[in-house]
């Protein structure tokens, strides 16, 4: 059984159920699994908990699943730039668990590595530490954070070979590898599927052992903040 599927809907077939936990890669709108998000919207799966650094913007990225009210809870570090998110959160329609960004990344990575929890200094003395075990190491306080195991990981990479070896591009790598690692099943969308052997094994960012299903998709790659500098006059 190969890992390559023809469409996002086909790649998600049999994997979606109401109330599931999904880990999504991406930072802002950079390196997000656009096609898989659309397919989840079309599938209408409800009461989702989504672990993702951000929640997209109103009409793009994970924002589309908020508009359709398919998300029950977000686990995120930053949710600015999304009015519908703010509205649903402040009115109590949407649960939000704020995680410091590094804690969120490590919760995904560690769970994927079979480490169910870890101690970190991040958040000590803040609301993040409330209700969490505190342990001293070398005289300093650390709090216990638990790993996240997702029912499904949705990930965007630049290239994959048919065995699922992945290469990412520039800062679009971000949360994609840790998100991929923490899923019981990981579905990846890429810009290009290349023949096995065409990626130098030394240049693979994430080995195919973490990847179960792959699709090639079209990507809009919207820019959130277009900033430029002027060329100096000669």
């Amino acid at each position: 059984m190969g890992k390559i599927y023809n469409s996002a809907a086909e790649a998600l077939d049999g994997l979606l159920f109401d109330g599931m936990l999904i880990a999504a890669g991406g930072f802002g709108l950079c390196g997000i699994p656009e096609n898989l998000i659309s397919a989840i919207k079309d599938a209408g799966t409800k009461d989702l908990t989504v672990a993702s650094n951000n929640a997209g913007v109103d009409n793009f990225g994970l924002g589309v699943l908020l508009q359709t009210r398919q998300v029950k809870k977000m686990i995120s570090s930053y949710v600015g730039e999304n009015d519908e998110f703010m509205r649903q959160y402040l009115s109590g329609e949407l649960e939000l668990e704020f995680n410091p960004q590094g804690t969120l990344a490590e919760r995904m990575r560690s769970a994927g590595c079979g480490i169910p929890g870890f101690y970190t200094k991040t958040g000590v003395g803040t609301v993040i530490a409330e209700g969490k075990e505190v342990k001293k190491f070398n005289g300093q306080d650390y709090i216990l954070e638990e790993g996240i195991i997702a029912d499904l990981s949705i990930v965007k990479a630049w290239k994959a070979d048919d065995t699922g070896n992945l290469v990412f591009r520039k800062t679009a790598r971000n949360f994609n590898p840790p998100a991929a690692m923490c899923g019981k099943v990981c579905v990846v969308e890429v810009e290009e599927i290349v023949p096995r052997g065409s990626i130098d094994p030394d240049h693979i960012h994430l080995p195919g052992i973490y990847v179960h299903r792959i699709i090639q998709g079209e990507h809009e790659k919207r820019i959130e903040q277009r900033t430029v500098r002027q060329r100096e006059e000669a």
Partner: protein
Amino acid sequence: MAWDRNQMAERAAQELQDGWYVNLGIGIPTLVANYVGDKDITLQSENGMLGMGPFPFEGEEDPDLINAGKQTITELSRTAYFDSATSFGMIRGGKIAAAILGAMEVAENGDLANWMIPGKLVKGMGGAMDLVAGVGKVIVIMDHANKKGESKLLKECTLPLTGKGVVDRIITNLGVFDVVEGGLKLVEMADGVTRAEIDSLTEATLVN
């Protein structure tokens, strides 16, 4: 005359030492990059990059290349990319020499609040909690007082904390302050600013 945004950034750049890896926050801290001069400074962007370059020329924006403020940027010959878990590994692991961040409030014991105003503004802490817990030196750049003229250097923070006892140095439009035993120590005054002005706009205890 108090310092303007650029003068505050220029003053903050003096804190950076040759060879340092540094993380700059969003807003005024971003301007610090314009004043590092000849110093060999590598900027980290916590979304997964060391060696952050300037904004691209128009037409050369790459949606796969952004900074932590989601702005389009460029790479340099020294640039390295990595995933978010690795990025915060180097932050938490103390490999980043300094972070320069904005703030809503700083207390005299070094407590920092910069991520939310309950009931009003809910954006999230992003990487700020990890940065202040992990980097070598935390430098805050902010206006000395808020728009109502109330001190942002307080005896105790009123907003939810980003970190407890984490701030080392504060650069405001009025001067430079260090967090020391018993309160804040005035290190330097902006040109033309008087001690009386600073006293009147500072709620935190100033120690000599």
